[in-house]
């Protein structure tokens, strides 16, 4: 049986691991390679690395991180942030990424989703969608690491990306991100019921129940989390144990 995945998310800024709230007020939370090593020893299911401030210099540091992690962590890696061309895509796969995440590029150059899927297979194209509610309460897609809000409905955008070949959706609610008060459950459920590909919940996990709700009620295939692992005494091991007790199919060490 396919297991539900628990995925620590490592946000990167100039080679350091950071964590904020609602895509702002970032705090340094350590060295990403050291963190990956710890997660690997805890046998987590996968790691997601996202460069939240992509630049020419950060690109090099991300590559170095993936290279270092790949030397000792024999586990699945998803990498994103600043991927703009097929060459960027290919380079990350070569370095050891199993999947590449596209966010801003999926909006600005949707052909990259199609070309990535055509060349590397749909299974390694993750489309990451950040969104928040506008003053009238409508959800809108946000790109460039939270800087630019578009007049674009996230569900429409997701359906289009899946049509183009996205193999997985990483869905992050900026309003919930870092708040640790739960994911945007209604929207997760709506998206997961509309797309045939796996959905990863992101933004807002603060309690063990949040993971269960996203995986069971919303039918997400995986749950991503940052703050709960950085700032509380919860660990992926505890999450896994809790979910096992709730009769969910997770990988047990």
């Amino acid at each position, binding site marked *: 049986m*396919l297991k539900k995945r628990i995925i620590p998310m490592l946000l990167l800024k100039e080679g350091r691991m950071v964590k904020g709230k609602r895509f702002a007020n970032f705090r340094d939370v350590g060295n990403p390679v050291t963190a990956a090593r710890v997660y690997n020893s805890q046998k987590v*299911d996968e790691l997601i690395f996202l460069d939240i401030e992509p630049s020419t210099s950060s690109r090099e540091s991300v590559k170095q991180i993936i290279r270092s992690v790949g030397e000792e962590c*024999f*586990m699945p890696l998803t990498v994103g942030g600043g991927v703009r061309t097929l060459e960027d895509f290919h380079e990350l*796969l070569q370095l050891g990424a199993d999947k590449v995440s596209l966010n801003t590029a999926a909006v600005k150059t949707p052909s990259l989703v199609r070309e990535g899927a055509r060349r590397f297979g749909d*299974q390694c194209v993750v489309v990451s969608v950040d969104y928040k509610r506008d003053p009238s309460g409508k959800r809108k897609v946000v790109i460039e690491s939270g800087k630019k809000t578009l007049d674009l409905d996230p569900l429409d955008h997701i359906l289009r990306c899946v049509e183009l070949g996205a193999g*997985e959706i990483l869905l992050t609610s900026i309003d919930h991100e870092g708040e640790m008060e739960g994911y945007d459950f209604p929207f997760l459920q709506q998206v997961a019921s509309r797309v045939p*590909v796996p959905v990863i919940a992101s933004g807002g996990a603060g309690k063990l129940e949040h993971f269960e709700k996203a995986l069971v009620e919303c039918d997400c295939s995986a749950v991503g989390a940052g703050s709960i692992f950085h700032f509380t005494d919860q660990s992926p091991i505890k999450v896994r144990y809790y979910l096992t007790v709730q009769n969910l199919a997770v990988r047990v060490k």
Partner: protein
Amino acid sequence: MIAIIDYGMGNVFSVKNACEFLGEEAIVTRNPGEIARSDRLILPGVGAFGEAMENLRDLNLVTLLHEEVLQKKKPILGICLGMQLMASQSVEKGNHGGLGWVAAKVVRFPRSSFPFRVPHVGWNEISPRPNVPFFANLKKDRNVYFVHSYHLVPENNHEIAATCSYGIEFCASVWKENIFATQFHPEKSQNVGLSILESFLEWSPPSRKPGELASTGVEEIA
């Protein structure tokens, strides 16, 4: 020495790192001399079938690999797309001929029917067939990492080395003489995967008896 075939289709360094972690010398190469000198081969791969075959042809690796695998009987491990390329044909985005070492067809998972979303991504449990040496050291945990939309359907049931269940029962691994292949990624499956990779690296196929003919099919290809 292990030659990891570099034909421009992804993930070669993870495989190299995993081999080195297990104490084996491994090179990433497309050089015919190095491939011929190696003791065993790994054919990794992430990507689309048609393009992968095209790359192998453009790099003049197809005839060389036929020689190494079918005539010299060098042990080879195919991973993910590398396993699929060993099949006779694939229907991924058109119809493509493969290397043809395993009589099999590569097909897509049935169109997603909940809860079986496609691609099949994540950790799933394999059921090894009895007496497959590569799985002999596995303990209770048989979860390995998959990330794919297509899978192999072998014609000969006895060449299936392990199965896995995802809506349907599909072939997770094949084993035929010196050829071993996995649809999952041993180099990404933590200790379970490393154990499988280690078993492959330590394994030697039973040597052919003197005078025994090479398996049929070699002549056709040569």
